[in-house]
C-alpha cells in the first residue's frame, strides 16, 4: 500500500523532509512507525519517544493503534502549541 506521510515541526527537522510517499505493509500506525524506525537512524531518533508524537490520519487526529486500511495521508507531529 502506498501512503503519503507528512512531518511537522521538530519531527520534520529531525527527519529532514516535510513529506514523502512510502510503500508499507503495516496494518496500524504503530506498525508503520516500526517500519520507519528500522529504515534509518534519523527516523529512529524522531520516533524515539512516541509520547511526544501525535498522529493524524487523513487530517483527523488519531492514535497509534488505529488501522491504516483506506488511509491516504498520515501526519506525524509534536503536541500542538497554537493560540
Amino acid at each position, binding site marked *: 500500500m502506498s501512503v503519503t506521510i507528512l512531518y*511537522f515541526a521538530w519531527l520534520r527537522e529531525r527527519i529532514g523532509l516535510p513529506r514523502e510517499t512510502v510503500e508499507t505493509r503495516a496494518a496500524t500506525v504503530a506498525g508503520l512507525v516500526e517500519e520507519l524506525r528500522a529504515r534509518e537512524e534519523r527516523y529512529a531518533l524522531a520516533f524515539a519517544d512516541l509520547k511526544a508524537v501525535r498522529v*493524524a490520519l487523513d*487530517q483527523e487526529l488519531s492514535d497509534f493503534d488505529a488501522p491504516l486500511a483506506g488511509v491516504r495521508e498520515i501526519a506525524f*507531529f509534536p*503536541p*500542538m*502549541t*497554537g*493560540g
Partner: protein
Amino acid sequence: MTVRVQAEPFDYGAECNAFAAACGGAGAVVTFCGLVRDEDGRLSGMEIEHYPGMTERALAGIEAEARARWSLTEALILHRHGPMAPGEAIMMVATASRHRGDAFAAAEFLMDYLKSRAPFWKKEFGTDGEAWVAARDEDEDQLKRW
C-alpha cells in the same frame, strides 16, 4: 461564523469592530487576542508552522462544537502562520451572544481546543537561538473541564 487562516498580519481592533458590527444585535461580545511576547528583549520573533488543510478542518470543527454547546449569534477564529515580530497579534477568537456567560464560556472553549487540537506549532527565535515551544500539560488538562 468564520474561520480564517492566513500569513498576513491582521488588525485586532479593526476585526473587533467588524465583528461587533456584524454580531446581530447580540449585546455581549468577547474577544481573545494572543500576542507575540518579547520576554524582556530575549525574543526577536517567532514562527508558526501549520498543517494546511487539517488546520481549517480542525478549526471549523471546534467552532461548530462551540455553536452547538452555546447560544451564539456569531463566532470568529482567526489564526496566522509564518514569521511574526514581538507585539504582533498571532491569533484571535471572538464570540457574540445575548448572554455574556455564553460568550465567555464559548471563547474559553474555543481557545482551549484550539491550543491542543488545532495543528499549529510555535518556534521562538531569541538570543539563545531558536527553539520549538513545548506543549504545556495544563493545556491538555484544560480540555477536561468541557
